[in-house]
C-alpha cells in the first residue's frame, strides 16, 4: 500500500538532534535520531512540533532530506517572518531534543521500481525531497537516467552544492540562477520557462517521470510547461515547497 502513514497512526516522539550542518547563509540541515523510526521513502515529509514554556505549540511539516535507510534529516530555510524556521535554523543545537512524527505522504515519492527517466525540477528549497530521491537512486544502485534542473537566486543559495557536484553516472545536473550569476557563469539564467525546459527536459517521447518542487509560481510554470511539451499530467508530480515553505 502506498501510504506509510496507514500503519496504524503516527505518534509523536522526541528525537535527539545529532548534527546541524549549515548549507547556505539561511539554510541548515538537521540530522535527527528518533527512538522509533519506521523508515521513510524518498520524497516523504515529517511533522515537527515546538513547545514553549507556556505550553504553546507550533507544528510544521518538512520534507525529509536523507535517503531511505538513513536516519531522518530535514533541511530548513530561514523565513524572516516565520516562527518555526528561525528557531530551527538559528536556535537549535546538536544535542537538543526535537519532537516529530512521520513519515507522512505517499504520492510525491520515488522508488527504483518506478523507473524513469527522471526529471527533477527544484525551485529554491524545493530541492530537499529531490535530493532524497537522487541520494536514494545512488545508494540503491539504480541506473535510471536522471536530470535535475535547480533554480536558485544566486550560486550561494544553492543547497547541497558539493553533493550535487559529485553526481555523474547517469545524473545530469544543471542550474538556472535567477537573481545574480558569478563571473563566467556558464549555466542558465533567469526564471524557469517553457523555452528553458524544452532544452533541458527529456523529450515527451522518453516517457519521463517528473517531480517538481518549489514555490507556487515555479511549480505552476514548470508543470504547465511540461504539459505543453507533451508530458501526460499523470507523469508530473508536484509539491509546493515540500513542506519546507512553512513559517
Amino acid at each position: 500500500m502506498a501510504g506509510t502513514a496507514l500503519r496504524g497512526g503516527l505518534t509523536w516522539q522526541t528525537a535527539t538532534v545529532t548534527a546541524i550542518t549549515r548549507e547556505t547563509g539561511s539554510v541548515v540541515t538537521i540530522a535527527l535520531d528518533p527512538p522509533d523510526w519506521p523508515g521513510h521513502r524518498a520524497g516523504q515529509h515529517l511533522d515537527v512540533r515546538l513547545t514553549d514554556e507556556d505550553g504553546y505549540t507550533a507544528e510544521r511539516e518538512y520534507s525529509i532530506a536523507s535517503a531511505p535507510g538513513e536516519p531522518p534529516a530535514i533541511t530548513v530555510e530561514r523565513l524572516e517572518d516565520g516562527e518555526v524556521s528561525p528557531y530551527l535554523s538559528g536556535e537549535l543545537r546538536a544535542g537538543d531534543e526535537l519532537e516529530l512524527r512521520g513519515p507522512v505522504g505517499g504520492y510525491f515519492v520515488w522508488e527504483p521500481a518506478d523507473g524513469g527517466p527522471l526529471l527533477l525540477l527544484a525551485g529554491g528549497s524545493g530541492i530537499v525531497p529531490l535530493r532524497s530521491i537522487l541520494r536514494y537512486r545512488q545508494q540503491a544502485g539504480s541506473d535510471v537516467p536522471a536530470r535535475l534542473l535547480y533554480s536558485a537566486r544566486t550560486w550561494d543559495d544553492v543547497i547541497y552544492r558539493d553533493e550535487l557536484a559529485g553526481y555523474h553516472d547517469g545524473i545530469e545536473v544543471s542550474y538556472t540562477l535567477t537573481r545574480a550569476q558569478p563571473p563566467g557563469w556558464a549555466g542558465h539564467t533567469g526564471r524557469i520557462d517553457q523555452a528553458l525546459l524544452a532544452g533541458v527536459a527529456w523529450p515527451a517521447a522518453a516517457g519521463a517521470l517528473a517531480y517538481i518542487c518549489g514555490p507556487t509560481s515555479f511549480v505552476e510554470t514548470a508543470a504547465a510547461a511540461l504539459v505543453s511539451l507533451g508530458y501526460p499530467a499523470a507523469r508530473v508530480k508536484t509539491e509546493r515547497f515540500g513542506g519546507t515553505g512553512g513559517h
Partner: protein
Amino acid sequence: MSPVSRGFRHLTRAPAGREGRLPPGQYFTEGFPVLSAGPTPRTPPEEWTFSVTRGGQAVKSWTWEEFQGLPAEDITVDIHCVTRWSKFDTGWRGVSVDTLLAQAGVDAPFVMAFCDGDYTTNLAAADITGGKAWVAFGFGGGPLAAEHGGPARLLVPHLYFWKSAKWVRRLDLRERDEPGFWETYGYHMHGDPWREQRYAGD
C-alpha cells in the same frame, strides 16, 4: 507531555479576539497558499459540466451556463489546511450542495468527489448537506482562479481543506465510504480540524 523547546517563543497567534477560531496545531495566515499534486487542469467553460451520479450511474448534469443559473449564495468562512495554515473570513460564491442534490433527487450516506486531474476525495453525505458545503465558482468577489480550483471547487469549510476538492466535476453518491486520493496516502477519512484528524489513526 511535550518537552519544552529550549529558547522557542511562540509568536504567531490569531488576531486578538479571534484566537478561538484557530483549531489545534494551526497557524494564522493572511496569504492563500496553493497545494496540489499535479499540473493545474484548465477546462474551458464550454467544455465544463457538473454532474451528480449514484453508484456511477448518471442522474443529473449541468452545463456551465445552466450551473450559473442555479441559485447562488455568498459564503464567508474560515478555512483550515492540513499543512497547518488557517485563513479567516474567506469570501466565496457558489451553489449549495443541498440545491444540487435536491435537483438530482438522490440520496446516499457517502459521496466521492471526482475532479479534473484525477483527484478524488471522500465525504459523508452528512458533511456536505444541511448548509455545510457548496460548489464554489467565485472567490473574493471575482471568478475562482484555476490554481485555487477554478472554474469550480468544492467548499467544505468545516473539514481540512483537502476535502474542498479543486476542479470538481462530479459527485458520486455511494453506499460505502471509500478513500479518495489523499486518504489512500494516509490522510484521515474524515478530516475534522477541531479534532486534529490529519492522518489515518489521528
